[in-house]
């Protein structure tokens, strides 16, 4: 039986040559690697995949639906803020979409958890523990996480979409220091759970740049009373938003990578969720295509299914077919028995 994943180290142990930088040495591979993928590539790869399947070879490309991510993000943004159906606000959407937005039709899970923490000030000791915990909100988040991991961040989060678009303005980006990636968990425990319980104020919401954008801009436009109530804190919050907007041009997904408490909840389950992303070092030519095109700014060759991965499957468009996605119950393509 073949191993699940073949790492570069295993290649060396087996006496196979290290393929590092082969892509940049070989002109054909270099041209292929430096190009962004498009539908034409996908069709070509699908054809190559079909023809190789008939020869009993491995599939080389990802499925077509992974090329629709941008459209799904836009559709999610529109649906989440479609104004009518406000009765649905009892459902917390598994993405960062501010419920103070005039058009929002779903609740914010982080807002609901913070309100539960605040409410626990009065109910703790008077009610059993299961009556204090926001079981419905947490349970829904756990179900979504178990099924999709952090794919919600990559596929439906409106703030994630905005970050992707701003990051596309530049070709080169700074990397987020690894230590800063753990700040999300501090934000989750401190600003979503402990500080709201102690102070009675939802501090994550108070500092959230998504709220400053959706609620802070749109509510004052539509509501004169809100406009009249704007004070100094509104300007502080707008400064936080502007800071993040500028950072989004220079760093890929700075909010998701450092402070998003919702992403922190999802990333706890990402490694064990239904959707898997596999890396095959045998096929990898180390062209760095996946590293350049990763919206989360990570190295997919090393950090697939990790805490920083957002499950967007951009890397699964790999021109060499080295990264592929599959549901948990499906065997790895490289392990599938060759057709006779």
């Amino acid at each position, binding site marked *: 039986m073949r191993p699940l994943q073949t790492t570069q180290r295993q290649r060396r142990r087996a006496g196979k040559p290290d393929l590092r930088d082969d892509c940049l040495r070989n002109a054909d591979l270099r041209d292929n690697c430096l190009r962004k993928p498009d539908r034409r590539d996908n069709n070509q790869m699908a054809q190559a995949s079909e023809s190789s399947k008939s020869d009993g070879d491995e599939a080389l490309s990802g499925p077509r639906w992974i090329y629709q991510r941008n459209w799904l993000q836009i559709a999610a943004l529109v649906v989440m803020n479609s104004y009518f159906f406000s009765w649905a606000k*009892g459902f917390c959407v598994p993405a960062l979409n501010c419920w103070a937005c005039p058009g929002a039709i779903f609740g914010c899970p982080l807002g*609901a958890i913070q309100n539960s923490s605040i409410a626990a000030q009065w109910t703790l000791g008077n009610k059993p523990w299961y009556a204090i915990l926001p*079981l*419905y*909100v947490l349970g829904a988040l756990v179900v979504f996480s178990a099924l999709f991991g952090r794919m919600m961040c990559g596929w439906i989060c409106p703030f994630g979409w905005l970050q992707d678009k701003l990051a596309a303005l530049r070709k080169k980006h700074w990397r987020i220091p690894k230590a800063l990636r753990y700040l999300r968990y501090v934000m989750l425990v401190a600003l979503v759970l402990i500080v709201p319980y102690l102070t009675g104020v939802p501090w994550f919401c108070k500092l959230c740049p998504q709220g400053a954008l959706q609620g*802070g801009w749109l509510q004052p436009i539509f509501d004169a009373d809100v406009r009249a*109530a*704007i004070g100094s804190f509104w300007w502080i919050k707008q400064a936080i938003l502007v800071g993040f907007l500028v950072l989004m041009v220079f760093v890929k997904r700075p909010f998701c990578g450092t402070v998003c408490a919702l992403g922190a909840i999802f990333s706890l389950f990402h490694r064990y969720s239904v959707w898997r992303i596999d890396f095959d070092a045998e096929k990898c030519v180390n062209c760095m295509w996946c590293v350049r095109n990763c919206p989360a700014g990570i190295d997919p060759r090393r950090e697939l299914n990790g805490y920083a991965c957002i499950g967007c499957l951009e890397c699964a468009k790999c021109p060499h077919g080295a990264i592929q996605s599959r549901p948990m119950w499906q065997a790895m393509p490289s392990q599938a028995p060759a057709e006779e």
Partner: protein
Amino acid sequence: MKRYLWIIAAVVGLAGVIVGLGQGEWGTVLAWARILCTSCIGLSD
């Protein structure tokens, strides 16, 4: 074992959803959502 952790998590999560809904949390969240979140907008308290 790791292959099946998602099933355990999904079942536990689903149980949480059912218990939470049974306690009327839908209405609680709906009530919170219908109050304008001044913290989100950035208004002073």
